[in-house]
């Protein structure tokens, strides 16, 4: 992290085990205010588990997570949300019986402590956020009528509606085609432009290189490398563990 940037999120030796196997194993890194940081790594590297630790869905087996200087380890998920940490789920979890607009409104009704909203203001907020992610035209639709890319957008909309300081995105671009990825990139940039720090998990290298100032590579639950995406992606160990030779050649050429 460059000097002059205030640290917002600080992971120190974060560890999470499932039945003796460490899915996240002593992960240490920081995220500064206003950054966009990428997390990459092979399947099963522990990326989602790490996000679950940050958002309070998993109890830590070791280490500490600090938010704006104070520990949030062991805190309930709703309290972490109130502090201003929002997230999406890799496997989308919409509220199926609600409309698109109502889904987003739940984020605005609860969400971070930036002022409790009554239903009326929450729905206005929901409309703004749906506009931002490009779901405005489908506000009244039931979730079941949404395509997969739209469901991913809804995940983002709901999290953004909580007015987070930090947004955790778990593979919101997986399964999208090139045009849709470009749209999603625009969406992330638009959210970032409103002053939100972003920590995103992505398999699509174009995304990491396109928006991230820094990338953290996870492998077997440990940090394999971190730094500027262009540098990290040329790292021999990263290529071995994750990218494969073919990609490395393409990157060099």
């Amino acid at each position: 992290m460059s000097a002059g940037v205030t640290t917002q999120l600080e992971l120190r030796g974060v560890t999470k085990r499932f039945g003796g196997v460490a899915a996240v194993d002593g992960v240490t890194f920081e995220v500064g205010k206003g950054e966009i940081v990428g997390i990459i790594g092979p399947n099963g590297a522990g990326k989602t588990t790490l996000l679950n630790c940050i958002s309070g869905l998993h109890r830590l087996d070791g280490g500490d997570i600090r938010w704006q200087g104070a520990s949030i380890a062991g805190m309930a998920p709703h309290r972490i949300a109130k502090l201003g940490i929002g997230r999406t789920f890799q496997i989308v979890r919409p509220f199926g019986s609600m409309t698109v607009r109502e889904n987003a409104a739940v984020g605005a009704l609860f969400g971070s402590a930036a002022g409790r909203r009554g239903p009326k203001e929450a729905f206005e907020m929901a409309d703004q956020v749906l506009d931002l992610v490009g779901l405005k035209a489908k506000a009244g639709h039931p979730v079941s009528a949404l395509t997969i890319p739209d469901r991913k957008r809804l995940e983002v909309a709901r999290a953004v509606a909580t007015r987070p300081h930090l947004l955790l995105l778990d593979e919101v671009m997986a399964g999208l085609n090139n045009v849709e990825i470009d749209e999603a990139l625009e969406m992330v940039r638009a959210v970032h432009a409103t002053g939100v720090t972003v920590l995103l998990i992505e398999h699509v290298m174009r995304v990491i290189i396109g928006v991230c100032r820094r990338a953290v590579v996870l492998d077997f639950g440990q940090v394999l490398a971190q730094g500027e995406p262009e540098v990290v992606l040329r790292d021999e160990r990263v290529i071995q563990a994750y990218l494969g030779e073919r990609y490395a050649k393409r990157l060099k050429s």
Partner: protein
Amino acid sequence: MFLILGAILAAYALLAPLTSLDAAQSANVPLLADRLWFRIATIIAMFIVMATAWNIIGGITGYAAFGNVAFFGIGAYTTGMLIAKAKWPFLVALPFAPLVSAGFAALVGLPLLRLRGHYFAVASLGVGVAVGELVQNIDYGGQPLFGGASGLFLPIYAIDNRGLFFFYLMVAAATIAIAVTWWVLRSRFGYGLIAIRENEEAAAVLGVNTTVYKVAAFALSAALTGLAGGIFSQWNVFINQDNTFPIDYNVQMILMALLGGTGTVFGPAVGAVLLQLLIQFLGGSLPISFDIPFVSADARPILAQVILGVLLVGVVIFVPRGVIDFFGGRSRLSLSYLRRSLRETSL
């Protein structure tokens, strides 16, 4: 607001013919039949309260509570004890029924609502059974504290036209239950509960305090159920384990909510009216004489159980959103509707 007004108007519309029926009493309408209709109407209102209250935890929040009858019994015994032992006037004792029921629900809800799905259903059923047994068997100073196996007798509430009074009271409770549901579904609280039902972890990371919300929903459900129990105790004058903790009420209130439509404002009430009429009819309690071919009078309660069972299965499979779905032009009952439902509810 309009809906509350509508509910009150509907209650009046319901009451008007009944009060005229009451007036007709002097005009030689058979007294017995008249009283019976009042009794049935009061019981229906009582089940509207219970089904509507169950809907708050079971339908809106999605936690299938199988032991809500415990709150009916606790409400009945709270009011009953205050009247019979402490000699309190009925209307002073009544507010304590919902309070004590809600307090108890909050207490058991805290550990119980950590359980998911069928674990919660089974555990809540256990609580429902256990409370009934406790109430009957707790002794204090060598005497049964709550009247024991012989039950509790209350002094008769001295008021003209008691039947009508308790009918009004139960209808008022039903109106409160429906109005509360109407408010819940439009509030922040209600959106939180529905979010919990649809995906609890997603609700939590959006900032819903799931523990507090679930316990509050359970306590609210218990308060309304307890209110019905409190009214019942003074209305019935005699309470015991059998009439205040009947296990089949658990199934009935759930079936009513399912039949009418869970998660809706009026669905459980519609289900309560339909199902209670059917139960009374099959049980032979309605002052309508009829014979069911091949079924002796003794076997009728059994037949009623069988029909209820078949109905439960049929509703769950074919009308998953309840009969309220056919009101207001939302859907029409047709073969294609049933086929679509079957597709939705099967793997």
